[in-house]
Every structure is written in C-alpha cells, then in structure tokens.
C-alpha cells in the first residue's frame, strides 16, 4: 500500500526556512502571502493486509523516526483507503 507522509514544523516553533521563503515571495511581489511553513513529504510502500493495519504501522514509524514530535507534526494518507 502506498502511503504519503507530511511532516511540518509545529505551530509556534521557529521555522527559519519558512520565513526565508515568505520573504523571498514578498520580494517577488507576492504581497498577499501569509506565514509560510516548510516541511517534508515522504512517500513509502508498506505491505499490509488492510489500510487500518497500514495506518497503525505508519503511525509508529512517524512517532519513532520520521518525525521529531518535539518540534514537528505529521499526518499521512493511505492511498486507496
């Protein structure tokens, strides 16, 4: 099963990359742009008998390795679920 994992900095955590992107967008004339948050996108395949099983497996992956939950939030989509 194909899983898409999105990792973003938590609200309130300094995100210097997001800020730099925001400043660059503004300097290009995109003056309507609001706060930018920059995160990571991870795509993976997992062999699971059901999307529920896949979801619980991926949750554990996120908690243990893929995200640092001190500073990052994560969410994921199991394709076909």
């Amino acid at each position: 099963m194909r899983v898409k994992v999105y990792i973003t900095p938590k609200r309130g955590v300094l995100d210097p990359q997001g800020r730099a992107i925001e400043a660059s967008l503004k300097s290009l004339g995109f003056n309507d742009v609001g706060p930018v948050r920059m995160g990571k996108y991870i795509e993976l395949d997992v062999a699971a008998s059901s999307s529920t099983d896949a979801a619980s497996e991926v949750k554990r992956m996120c908690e243990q390795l893929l995200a640092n939950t001190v500073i990052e939030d994560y969410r994921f989509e199991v394709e076909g679920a």
Partner: protein
Amino acid sequence: MKWGVVSFPGSLDDRDTLYALRDVLEQDAELLWHKDRDLRNADCVVLPGGFSYGDYLRCGAMARFSPIMESVVNHARRGGLVLGICNGFQILCEAHLLPGALTRNRSLSFICQRVTVRVENTQTPFTCAAHPRELLRLPIKHGEGLYVAPEDELRRIEDRGQVLVRYVDSTGEPTDAANPNGSTHSIAGVANGSFNVFGLMPHPEHAVEPMLGGEGGLKIFRSIIQSFA
C-alpha cells in the same frame, strides 16, 4: 577515570576529542564503534561532532538507533556521564536524553566562528571547574544549532538551572547580536534533569591549547575530571 568517544559513520571530531583527552589532559580514553554495544567501562561517554549518517532526515535521527546508543541510554539511566558535542548534542536530543531539539540556524547558513558563552550553573559535573558566570571562548561550526523547546519545557529547564551555557557578548550579556544561530533564550547547551547528561553546540575539544586559539574548552573537560575524582 575512563572515557569512551563514539565514532559514528560521518563523525568528524572523534579523533580531535581523543587528542584533547589523551594528549592534552592525559586521560585514559578510547574510541567506541557505533556497531558495538560495549562501552568498555567508560565512566564518561562522549558523542562527538560531525555529520552522522549524513544528517539524513534530521541531524542525529539515524545515529540514535545505532547499537551503541542502546548502551549509552542505559549508561545515562544508571547515572553515567554523557557529553554530546554539536552533532552529539543533536543525537542526545533525538534520543530524548535531553529536552528540546536543534533546527536550522536563523540565517540558514552554516556558521563557523568563535563565540563567547557564559557558564550559567556551576553546580554540575560539566561546569564545576568554572566560576559562576565565567565567560568561555569556544568555536562553533554548524548549520543546525538553533535550540528550540516547547514553552513549558523551556520554563522548566530554565527554572531548574539546566541551561549550563548561553551565548553572550564580550561583556557577558545575552544580546540578540551575540546569538549566532537564533537559539531560544540564547541557549548554547543544556543538561538533563539529573545533570549527568550534557549537550552543547560549541566545541570544547577544539579549544584546548593556545595554538588552537584558546583553552576555554578545558574548563568543561576538567570539570568532568574534577567531579569524578
């Protein structure tokens, strides 16, 4: 006392640390391999600077799962001393042996320069040889040294005196201009709640001889030796 310096794939400063300990401080120190589990009776384990596992995913995220780290975590839980320098600090945060996390520098640039840090708490094994509020000149060289922690955690570590070193200017004030990477509260290094684990971004092992531009780093190593005597 015995020292163990861990070599991860991508560690850079393991041999410099060994040099500081063996040649400058005449300590019994040896390298420990990340795939081993044996700490060889080390009283103090040092996780050195570098780019373990290429900094993939997040700095320190992979190294945390090295076989040796299981032993390091057990050593720390038993009250054993652990010192993490730069990448070692990042690994200790990832392993949840220290609070908070380290992210990209405010400037987004890699920084290589000399900084001044102020010793905030001298009642610890890592700082007991320093005077209260003593200023140390140490080099930094990192791209991801901006210290962050959740608000309540930050308050807790400040209240308990877990912030051991802070970036300051030459007069000892933690000004914004003297904060090289944008760290919250100008934090350069923190200890855990029981003060046997300490991580810092500056490199004490690169400041152990006048020829290296200063000896500020000796204070940290001498504190550990003194606390053990």
